[in-house]
């Protein structure tokens, strides 16, 4: 889990928060409701996760519930890898 969180945090920092202090991005920071990920950024994130972890995320799973925090993203990836 920690490894996934680290990878996801790095991707979000580089793509959507360039120049931000990494310490500001907590595992529980709201990403979608907090204005960090808009709809296009969310698609990019999903494409990245699918590629990086060789998983498939269905359209209905790419929602605020699963993608709003690094915590929930890591849980989604973890569950996909187990079932895959």
């Amino acid at each position: 889990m920690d490894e996934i969180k680290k990878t996801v945090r790095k991707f979000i920092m580089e793509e959507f928060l360039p120049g931000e202090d990494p310490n500001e991005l907590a595992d529980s920071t709201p990403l979608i409701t907090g204005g960090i990920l808009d709809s296009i950024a969310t698609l990019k994130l999903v494409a990245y996760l699918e590629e990086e972890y060789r998983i498939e995320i269905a359209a209905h799973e790419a929602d605020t519930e699963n993608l709003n925090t690094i915590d929930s993203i890591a849980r989604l990836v973890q569950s996909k890898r187990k079932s895959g």
Partner: protein
Amino acid sequence: MKSTTLLHELLERAIAAHPDRTAVEDDAGAAITYAELGRLTDRLRDRLRALGVAPGDRVGIYLRKSIDAVAAIYGILKTGAAYVPVDPLAPVARNAFILNDCSVKAVIVGASFEGALRTELDRLGAAPRILALATAGSGMALPAALDEADRASTAPATTDAAPAPDSLAYILYTSGSTGNPKGVMLSHRNAVSYVAWCSEVFRPTHDDRLSNHAPLHFDLSILDLFLAVRHAAALIPIGEEIGKDPARLARLISEKRITIWYSAPSILTLLTQYGGLDRHAVPSLRIVLFAGEVFPVKHLRALKGLWPAPRYFNLYGPTETNVCTYFEVPAEIPAERTAPYPIGAACSHFRTRVVGDDGREGPRGSEGELWAAGDGVMQGYWNLPDESARAFVEDASGVRWYRTGDIVVEDDTGDFLFVGRRDRMVKRRGYRVELGEIEAALYKHPDVEEAAVIALPDSESGVRIRAFLTCRGRKRPSMIELKRFSAENLPLYMVPDVLTVTDSLPKTSTGKTDYQKLKATP
């Protein structure tokens, strides 16, 4: 058709000719015929009248895309009032500002927005009548809301209003450079002349099925809403969630057998990149229209590769004119082409001119501002007489020209090429964004002392928005905090991509923010 027809008369004609055809079908499968839409909008008209709405008033629509929202538009028009749609996804304070700004007599609001809206309207001292529609569950809530209101007291039956063709039909609020959205006032004549031009070029029939991807506060929706009804065709409103989800959208276009698609290029780019279009056949699709921003040729070529059959049109025009020029994309896009296609030449209900800095029309090929005159030009900005006056120039023969603010050049085939803007407005995902409105929102943050916002070209997304800030005291808010704050105060498409806090902003010799220097900042 005479150009003096009213928008709600289009509906009456469709009902008379094709009462049993589907008028509106939503993305979940609920549908309503023309005859049913007629009865429902009659009931809404009567209820709005009972609430005090009279010809010349404004009525707000604060609903998600739905059959109810389409019915709300026609119900309002039948009273002789103008409809004012707000973005259900935008911050409620911004929407309350809009509804208060044009002093709506009533608001038709989804129940999930009602409480927050009442609180904000209260703060502004506004008290329009509220017609709330349940938003839980699926299907239509408007008939139930009207039944409920009838139980207290039945609304007396009335007839459709017949306002003059130059009366306001709707007000669309766009981003305003001073920090507040501004209302573009459009009349029945403006919209009906536009619909007549669309009929002439796209030749729709009652067998067509038109998408409505654009939100109702976005001027693209005017074509969808009124062209469909003009031809008794079917309108397919696409909900906000599916609308931004390329995979579900691709399936919907195929399954709903859409024949005429219209959206901003950015959503077509997303469909191309993430929609899996090769998995969804679209044999019915015959026309693809796009407008609102430049469509990068790379993505347009890829889309045409996946959807080869339809004709493609680039429609151009600010909200103030809706579409005033158009260009049909050639069947083959050369592999080496990278330059965007032109915005084309004037539609038949418009005349255009290219005017140089000296106020004169230059020779063909010289850069200048595009001016437009014709039946499609707006009435003005709501309650902003100075800004309205500045938008127009009257020539010696008394023709009122609208200054678009867009710089164009005419190529040797008579088509206009878009060059840039005169001011600080940019397009993001098809939406107008005044960089000044973003600055004004950032100034509301308690730690922010100075804010300067610039737009930078981006090959992927078209434009990136970058904000530079200085702060009071030693406390520097993080980018995450500033993005959250922006999202609370602006529609999401206006949230800057990057926010940088610095010690000071560069200044010109006259002490103004040096935007050129900021643009060169790495």
